[in-house]
C-alpha cells in the first residue's frame, strides 16, 4: 500500500453546495471522535452516534447526505439498523466491516448499502469511498432509488456486485483484479455510451482507493482478455476513434440471481 501519494483531498470545494452532513455510527468512542474530527477537517458536517438507538434518535434531527455505519454494534446490529434505514430513506450507506464478516458484508450490500471499507480502515480510503458514493448519489440522483441489482447480465456474462465477482455463461467464476472490476462496473452502468479516458479516470478515481496509475488502456486490454474479447478486433469493449471506449452490449439487471448460478452460493459461517 502506498500512502501519501494522493494528498489532494478536496471535498466538493469546487461546488458551492453546502458541506455534506454525515452520520457516523460506531460504538468505539475514540474512533467516533477521531473520525468526526478527521471528516470535519475535510469540510464535512458530522454527527455521531454510539449505537443504533442513538442513531434512530438522531435521524429525524438532521438531513444527512450519507451514513458511515459500523456493522458490529452493541444491541441492535448494524445490519438491522441498515434495514430500518432503508425503510426511511435512500441515504447512501458506507459500511465498516471486519474481514471475517464477509457474509454480513454481502447481506449489507444486497440490502442496499453503497460501499464498504474493511476495518482497520485507512481514513483516506474511507474518505475516497465517501466522496465517490456522494458523487454518484448527486450526479445520478435516481441511481440509488432502484433496488440494488443482485446480478447484472451482459453478453452471456454475469456480474454479482455484492460478491464483486464475474461468472461466464457456464457459471465459472473468472477472477478480476480490483481495478478490472471497478472498470467493468463503470462500463456496465453506462452501456453503449462512449466514455473518454478522462471520464473513465474521473469515474474510477473515486471508486478505487489505491493507486490506479496503470493507464486506462492497460486495464481495458486486461479486461478484454478476461472477457475473451479479441484485442485486435474487439466486439464487446470497442475502442472509439479519438480516445475512448464503449461497452457494446445489452445490459440486463436482475433483482434475483438466476437459478442456474445459485449453487455458487456465498460463504457459510
Amino acid at each position: 500500500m502506498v500512502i501519501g501519494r494522493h494528498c489532494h483531498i478536496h471535498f466538493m470545494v469546487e461546488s458551492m453546495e453546502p458541506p455534506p452532513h454525515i452520520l457516523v455510527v460506531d460504538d468505539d468512542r475514540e474512533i467516533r471522535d477521531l473520525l468526526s474530527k478527521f471528516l470535519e477537517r475535510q469540510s464535512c458536517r458530522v454527527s455521531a452516534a454510539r449505537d443504533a438507538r442513538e442513531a434512530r434518535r438522531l435521524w429525524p434531527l438532521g438531513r444527512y447526505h450519507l451514513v458511515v455505519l459500523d456493522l458490529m454494534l452493541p444491541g441492535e446490529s448494524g445490519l438491522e439498523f441498515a434495514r430500518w434505514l432503508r425503510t426511511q430513506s435512500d441515504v447512501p450507506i458506507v459500511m465498516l466491516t471486519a474481514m471475517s464478516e464477509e457474509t454480513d458484508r454481502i447481506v449489507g450490500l444486497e440490502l442496499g448499502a453503497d460501499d464498504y471499507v474493511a476495518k482497520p480502515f485507512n481514513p483516506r480510503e474511507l474518505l475516497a469511498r465517501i466522496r465517490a458514493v456522494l458523487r454518484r448519489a448527486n450526479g445520478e440522483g435516481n441511481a440509488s432509488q432502484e433496488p440494488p441489482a443482485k446480478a447484472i447480465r451482459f453478453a452471456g456474462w454475469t456480474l454479482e456486485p455484492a460478491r464483486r465477482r464475474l461468472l461466464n455463461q457456464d457459471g465459472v467464476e473468472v477472477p478480476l483484479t480490483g481495478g478490472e472490476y471497478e472498470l467493468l462496473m463503470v462500463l456496465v452502468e453506462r452501456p453503449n455510451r462512449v466514455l473518454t479516458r478522462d471520464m473513465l479516470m474521473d469515474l474510477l478515481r473515486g471508486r478505487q482507493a489505491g493507486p490506479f496509475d496503470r493507464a486506462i488502456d492497460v486495464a481495458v486490454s486486461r479486461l478484454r482478455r478476461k472477457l475473451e474479447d479479441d484485442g485486435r478486433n474487439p466486439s464487446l469493449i470497442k475502442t472509439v476513434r479519438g480516445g475512448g471506449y464503449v461497452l457494446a452490449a445489452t445490459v440486463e439487471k436482475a433483482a434475483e440471481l438466476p437459478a442456474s448460478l445459485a449453487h455458487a452460493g456465498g460463504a457459510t459461517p
Partner: protein
Amino acid sequence: MIRRLRPRSLAGRTALFLTLALMLVQTAGLLIHALDRLDLQRIILSREISSRAFIFWRTAVLANPDRRQTMLYEIDLMRGLRADLSDTPAVRPGMPRPPPPLVEMFQVKRWRALPPNLRPRALLVAGGEGPRDLIVASQLPDGQWVNLWLTVPVMRPWHSGAFLVAFLMMTGAALALIVWATRRLTRPVSALARAAEQLGRDVNSPPLPEDGPREVATAARAFNTMAERIRRFVGDRTQMLAAIGHDLRTPITRLRLRAEFLEDDEQRRKMLADLDEMETMVNATLAFARDDAATEPSVPLDLAALCRTVLDEAMDARPGLTAEAVTYTGPERLRISARPVALKRALANLVGNALNYGGRVRLRLDGQGPKVEGGLVRLLIEDEGPGIPDDCLEVVFQPFRRLETSRNRETGGTGLGLPIARNILRAHGGDVMLMNRQGGGLSALVTLPA
C-alpha cells in the same frame, strides 16, 4: 514371489485364508467320504466274489462227474475270481497262512457250515502271492479238487469324474460366498478410513453412520466423538484468535486516524507504514488460524484468469516493476473447482515471495488438456533470486519459521505466507513444494486437482 502374490487388502487376505482353510477341510471331508464308500464297495464286491465261488463249488458238487467239466465252463466268473478243477489241491504245504481279514471277507466259514451233502471232504486255505490273494482248495466227494483263487478288487477312487467336478463346484461356490461376505464385513473399515481422510481435509465433514455390527458401531461412535472434539478445539482456537484480531483492529484504526493529525509529514508516513505492517501481520495470523479455506465453498473457477489476476495485482502493488518482470505462460482458460478467495491468497503469497526475494516472477500453468497427468494441474512459480539452502526447502513451510538471511525489514513478511499457502492448497487436495533450479533461482511447484 509368494510375498508378491499375497493380497494387500484386509478383504483379500481374509478371503484367501478362508478359501484355503475351506479347501483343506473339503479335501479331508471328501477323502473320508471316498474311503468309506470304497470300503463299502470292496465288501460288496468281495461278497459277490465269494457268492460266485460258492456257486462254482455247488455246481461242481451237484453235477454229474461226467458232465462236471462242461457245466463248470458255463459258469460266469468275474474279475477277482479264478477257478479250476484238478486232481491235486492248489494249496501246498509251505504256502503262507491265510490273512484273517481275507478269510473273514470271503466268508470262508460258510464252507465249513454247509449241509453234509455239500460239505467238502477236505478244505485247505492259504494266502496267495499278494496280500489281497486267497487260495481255497476244497475236495469233492470223488477226490477231485476245486481250486479257487480269490482276489480283493483294487479300487480306483479318483477314477470317477464326478469327484473332481464336485470339488471344483463346491470350492467355486464357497469362494464366491467368502468374497462377498468379507467385502461386506470389511466395508465399514474402508468407510472409517475414508472418513478419517475426509476429516483431515475438512473438519466439518459429515459424521459416520453409527449402525451395523456392534464393533463397527462402536468404532464409528468413537470416531465421531474424536471428530467432534477436534471440531470443538478448532472452533475454540478460531474464536479466540478472531477475538484477538478484532480487538487489535480497533487500536490500529484509532492510530491510523490519529496519524492523520500529525503535523510532521515524515513521521506520519512512517507511522502509517508501521500500522500497515501491523495490519498485515494481524491479518496473516488470523488467516492462518482461522483456516478460511474450510468455510469457503468450492465453486467452478477459471484458474488461468486467477493466475493473471494475482500477477496483475502484484504488479499494481509494486509501481516500480517493469512489465517484463512478471510473465505468464499457459492456457487462456482452465476450469477447475476451488475456493476463489483462499486460492487467490495462496497464489498471491507465492508470487509475492518470488517478487520480494527474486525481483521477478515467471508463472507457468501446465494445462495441455483439461486433465493433466493423473488429474492434477501443475503450476510453476519461478523467480531469479538467490534460492534457499537445500536443507531449508521444507523448513520454510513451518509457521513463523523464517530463514536467518531473510529476517530483515526490507523483505518484510510474517513467516506465515508459505504455511498459509500450503494449508490452503492441501485443503484443496493439492500441495506446494519448493526447489532450487539448476540455473539459479527458486521454483514453487503447485499441484491442484483438475
